[in-house]
């Protein structure tokens, strides 16, 4: 297609030389905004104004579904942490903010679990690569919340219990369930089983399947 070259316009006129017309035009713009916003604000119809800011703590903008926020660790059906300390996330983390010390789980079924799982939210660059790298649907950043400010640096290091406290039971079908998992994945409920406690606003269900759109 055509890519043209266009010489930009340099508007100029006698009126411009006289300062006032353009100044009046500019004042008109700001006055229009002022009137619209002022009366909209006074009459309490902020929706109709152009005002772009919000009163933050009382009024919060909803983060979009894909927002990368505070980490959380997902849980198994029995409430244990889903993470098996495979170290994919510390490996892929460009900020080296995840510390995991694995241990042998007494439960022979899982074998391995994190003894220590810490995320330094001050170091975290919120790139989301850890979520992408997790092969167990254990770590997620979909809390739709952000890291809270702290008085001390140490307080920004979230430990396993804190990360798990935000977690919910993941319903993702995962290795070991074995047979015919493709059918299970296809028919997987996108909402949690009834009676399950889900924190308000927290999304649930499996990580959106990244199928790249390939049929």
């Amino acid at each position, binding site marked *: 297609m055509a890519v043209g070259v266009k010489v930009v316009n340099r508007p100029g006129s006698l009126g411009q030389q006289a300062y*006032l017309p353009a100044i009046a035009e500019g004042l008109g713009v700001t006055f229009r905004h002022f009137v619209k916003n002022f009366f909209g604000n006074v009459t309490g119809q902020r929706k109709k104004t152009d005002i772009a*800011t919000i009163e933050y703590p009382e009024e919060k903008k909803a983060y979009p579904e894909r927002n990368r926020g505070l980490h959380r660790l997902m849980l198994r059906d029995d409430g244990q942490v889903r993470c098996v300390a495979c170290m994919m996330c510390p490996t892929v983390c460009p900020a080296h903010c995840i510390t995991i010390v694995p241990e042998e789980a007494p439960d022979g079924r899982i074998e391995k679990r994190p003894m220590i799982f810490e995320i330094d939210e001050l170091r975290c660059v919120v790139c989301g690569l850890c979520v992408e790298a997790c092969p167990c649907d254990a770590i997620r950043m979909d809390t739709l919340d952000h890291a809270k400010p702290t008085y001390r640096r140490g307080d920004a290091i979230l430990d396993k219990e804190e990360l798990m406290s935000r977690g919910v039971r993941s319903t993702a079908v995962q290795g070991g369930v074995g047979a015919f998992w493709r059918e299970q994945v296809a028919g997987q409920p996108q909402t949690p089983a009834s009676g399950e406690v889900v924190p308000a606003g927290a999304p649930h269900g499996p990580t959106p399947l990244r199928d790249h759109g390939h049929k």
Partner: protein
Amino acid sequence: MEYGSLGFQALAATIKIVFMILGFLMPLASILTWMERRESAMMQDRLGPNRANIGPFKLWGITHFMADAVKFLFKEDFIPPKAHKFLFMWAPIMAMAPALIVAAIIPFGAPLCWGEMTEKVGLGGACANPVNLQIAQLDVGLLFYFAISSLAVYGATLAGWASHNKWAMMGGLRATSQMMSYEVTMGMAVLGSFLVYGSLEPGAIADQQTNIINFGHFHSSWGIFLQPLGFILFLTAAIAETKRTPFDIPEGEPEIIGYFVEYSGLRFGMFFLGEFLEIVVSSAIMITIFFGGWHMGATVDGFLAHVPNIWIFPKSLLFSLLTLIVWSIKVFVFCGFQLMIRWSLPRFRSDQLMRLGWQRLLPISICNVVATALVVLAVQAW
């Protein structure tokens, strides 16, 4: 106390000074600091500061100026080690005081008819014993304004020099040249009005503008219609004198930060407040010369003059209060207008500012004076 005695005059002047400074200038300037932020916010599609409150009383954050004051009070008062201590401390006072002083000549309401308060209203000052709502009725009038307000330049200059900082120094120099230059235009701009009204005294000038616009008695119209060019010139020069955008060259935040770069705490607060005081005062002067002072045209004035005596308030007092309110609203609107200009325009460059002042505004204002003089001469001759 007998009307006209020294004691009476002293008491009246004291009451008027206290009212003017504590009851009007300071509160309005303080509120302007909030209003500037709120108004600019509304212009800029923001909410602006609306959170300062006293307990549950939020009032759109109007008490923000108090929060500001508290902040200024408790901030560290830093004086650079190599600064000239005395001048460094003196400069903010020099910046703020002139604005308060020149307020003395501004008429802010209809005169009280002393002795006949229940019978007459001071419309046009037609009383036996009028008490003018004007602190000082000086014959030099507006010359006093020019004389005192030109002192404000010392504040900026001294601040810039005493701070021992290259940027502050530049700001001080810029302020000096700018304020000196624009005073000339400012004086020239109102010269036409002096010719038209034949007086330098603000009260007298205001009292002549009894009509908003009257084509029959055109000379009794508001000054804006008699001296439109003069008004624009005066407005421009007045904004330049207050050192606000588009004339904020001495500050120029992204360029040189300005003469008060080293100031903090209450001293900075004085510069800050001084700037708003200047806005209020220059608005009041403009109202007086070009917008009829406390007059709101013959119709409104006449309507207001029909106030009855209510309870213990005599009709003269009530009328003065009403005109005071009219005047206040005018000043307030003008302040708002100045804020709006400040938030709409970019800033000049120092040499462009100089060129505008000397090459454009000054010749135009001289032409205005000459033309006005010719017209006045022609009218008088005719």
